[in-house]
């Protein structure tokens, strides 16, 4: 590109850059080989593909290793990416475990027959509504669907009384929605309670009157900044925002619908074991630990999500789960193919 450069000095520079780079490559390559070798030797090392918040999983893994001496190697990425990766890897997957931020990515692997059955003893530790019907994945934490709203733009008393109001002209241009992370669960709940036609009409209304955002984090930031009055979201996005910015001066707040509205639902983060794993017994130990008291304590300490077992206290000020019902459990949803079909019919995707 720069053809006017002094050629000699440039050659010298490029050669130096080149040899440093080659050296770096050799060293890294060597490390990789050593890493591969040690992976084969140590029987008590698990490979975990992690899509849940990294800090949360790191805390759980640290507690697990301390309790059992079993090492866990984590690969972090977005849950859907990891789900697609495991689907490509098939029976050769190096992963023993998958921890997904939402249930649909892991349910997609369940439908492809890639997950192994979890021990009954582990499944019995949590309520049945939090795990897969065939026992191939377990919920590890619970979160609620909520409305994040800006206190300066809308008074709490004036907030909509039902999730169904969001598909109507009354809320034109006043709310944000995100087509992912809990949205499918919301659609399925409406299908279950109000019927398919109502859900389709609701989605069409959403498309007409709402503003679509490419991510939950950016949508809740828009509410915080007063760019839009409300957003349909999961509870923990607000808590992470409050933790970073300080709760005191925050203009954004959370709201749940009164009574047993179709908008008051929960969803779970979920974990499972790969059928192809050669360390099934060890992987079962990790899953059991995940829903045990120490595992759940490590979980609730780092993220504003509800535990899946009783008797664990969250340091976050979470409202009671009593008004949140389970018209459809995460297990009923599966990978939410029907929600996807409806979104398509409504022209949302």
């Amino acid at each position: 590109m720069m053809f006017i450069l002094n050629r000699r000095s440039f050659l010298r520079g490029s050669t130096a850059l080149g040899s440093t780079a080659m050296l770096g490559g050799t060293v890294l390559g060597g490390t990789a080989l050593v890493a591969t070798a040690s992976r084969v030797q140590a029987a008590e090392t698990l490979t975990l593909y992690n899509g849940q918040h990294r800090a949360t999983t790191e805390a759980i893994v640290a507690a697990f290793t301390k309790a059992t001496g079993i090492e866990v190697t984590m690969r972090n990425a977005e849950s859907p990416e990891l789900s697609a990766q495991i689907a490509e890897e098939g029976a050769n997957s190096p992963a023993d475990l998958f921890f997904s931020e939402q249930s649909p990515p892991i349910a997609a692997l369940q439908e492809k027959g890639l997950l192994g059955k979890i021990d009954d003893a582990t499944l019995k530790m949590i309520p049945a509504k939090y795990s897969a019907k065939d026992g191939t994945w377990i919920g590890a934490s619970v979160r609620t669907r909520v409305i994040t709203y800006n206190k300066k733009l809308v008074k709490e008393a004036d907030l909509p009384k039902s999730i169904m109001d969001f598909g109507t002209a009354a809320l034109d241009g006043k709310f944000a929605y995100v087509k992912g992370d809990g949205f499918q669960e919301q659609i399925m709940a409406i299908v279950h309670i109000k019927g398919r036609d109502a859900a389709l009409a609701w989605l069409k209304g959403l498309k007409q009157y709402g503003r679509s955002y490419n991510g939950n984090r950016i949508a809740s930031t828009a509410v915080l900044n007063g760019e839009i009055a409300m957003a349909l979201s999961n509870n923990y996005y607000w808590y992470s925002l409050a933790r970073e910015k300080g709760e005191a001066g925050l203009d954004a707040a959370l709201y749940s619908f009164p009574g047993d509205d179709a908008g008051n639902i929960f969803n779970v983060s979920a974990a499972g074991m790969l059928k192809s794993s050669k360390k099934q017994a060890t992987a079962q130990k990790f899953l059991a630990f995940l829903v045990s008291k120490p595992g759940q304590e490590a979980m609730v300490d780092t993220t504003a999500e509800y535990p899946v077992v009783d008797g664990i206290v969250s340091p976050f000020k979470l409202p009671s789960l009593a008004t949140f019902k389970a018209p459809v459990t995460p297990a009923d949803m599966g990978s939410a193919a029907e929600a996807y079909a409806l979104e398509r019919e409504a022209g949302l995707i």
Partner: protein
Amino acid sequence: MRWSAKRALFDPSALNHPKAFGGGRYGVPPLWLVLLSLIPFGLVALPVGYVGMRTYAAGSSGILRDLVRPYTLNLLVNTLTLSVSVTVCAGIIATAAAWCTERCDLPGRRWWRLATALPLAVPAYVSSYAWSSLGPQFQEMGGAILILTFYSVPLIYLPVSAALRSLDPNFEDVARSLGLGRWRSFGRVVLPQIAPALSGSALLVSAHMLAEFGALSFLRVETFTTAIYDQYANEFNNDAAALLSGVLMLICLPVAFIEAALRGRRRFARISRGSARKPTPIALGRLMPPVVLGFVALAILGFGVPLVTLCFWVWEGTSTGQGIGRVVPALLTSLGYALPGAVLTTLLAVPLVIATTHFRGRLVTLSDRLPYLVHGLPGIVVALAAVSVAIRYAPLFYQTTGLVMLVYAVLFLPLAQSAVRASAELVPRELGEVARSLGKSPFKAFLLATLPNLAPGIGAALALVALQLMRELTATLLLAPAGVVTLATEFWSYTSDRAYGAAAPFAAALVLISGVPVYIFTIRTLRVADEP
């Protein structure tokens, strides 16, 4: 087309006429060159084959019905609007800026050059986040075009200003003396000579815009690429996502080949460069204040806004300081991946470029164009293609550093190709022929006569590719050995947990380290050019 001296004066491309230098037709490339070009060709063909097979696996049932919907049409319109607008806007701004810094009597040119090139040091997702937090008006298509235009300007500015600087002003003088005005002599004499630099970098930008994801995830603009990520996120259907990727490649296809056709058989090398005098700077006069203001705006918008945002994160965030001990190790790992990756990518690009600039052949043209198609694919698609192939055919190689390097090369070959091509086009192929006539083998002739002349292009390629590799996220996350931590992965990890204060130092380190190659290149070119 008949060769005439008059025509050559008005249209330097007439110099390409075979008779201009008494040269013959372009020959067929030697076997070793074809074989070396086949390595990158084979690598790049893998994701193309993967997309093809997945699309086929999706079955014919409902595939077309799936595509022909208002939603897809909307995506198509958005994708094209974004890609074309950004390319055109950045092309105009970059050419104007290059003209001002190279040909006008702008005071303090070295600083304006630096100011125009610096936004290259800021990753698109950082500047996008900064801009989107300024207000909703920046989150729509207009904002996306604005943000990505500022991001893309340096990618076009650097090659175009380098080309402008190497022009012999005599051509222009002759055109002016024959009665052409300044604008017309620019259009007929200067533009054709900077066209390869301009069209090559514009192609790069437009392909890059097709695949852009990180920046758009903060905005409210949906393109094919965001829809592909949605498909993975909601439908968990790798086949359907591949189908959309196939459409993306079809969009990129005409762009890539039109650029090659535009370049055509033009010849830009001169046997003897003669001794071009320094062009007399054009007096800006009354235009000076607006031009200076324009450069200030460019620097503030492209570099200042993102930097201030990072400072704000550090100041406001409660997570500030978390993970600070990981900044230096992450920086070293980033360099440890980016530098060898850049060397490999450049090594693979050189034979491709030589085969197409100095020779002709269908296979080499195809292998030269294919990387641009893949450059227009989202990173996740290329990464999954690598997963699919490696796990089946090279399981021991899976999730090793070597595999990541190969995927890096597949993703960023075109950057290296464009940079090396800029140099290669100035090297007369006769140089190799002379070496041959002195009894050297074709390969030795290449090593001794052609390769040393490519050094500036190779240096630029290394810098550009290393710059992009340090920001690469998806392939690194999915394919690097477990536990590898780079600046980009840390930034992603903290921002996805909204720990912006903790994320800021990693972004700042990324900007600082990226600033080094940008600074060196800009300063060096200018020192040489400004020497009396």
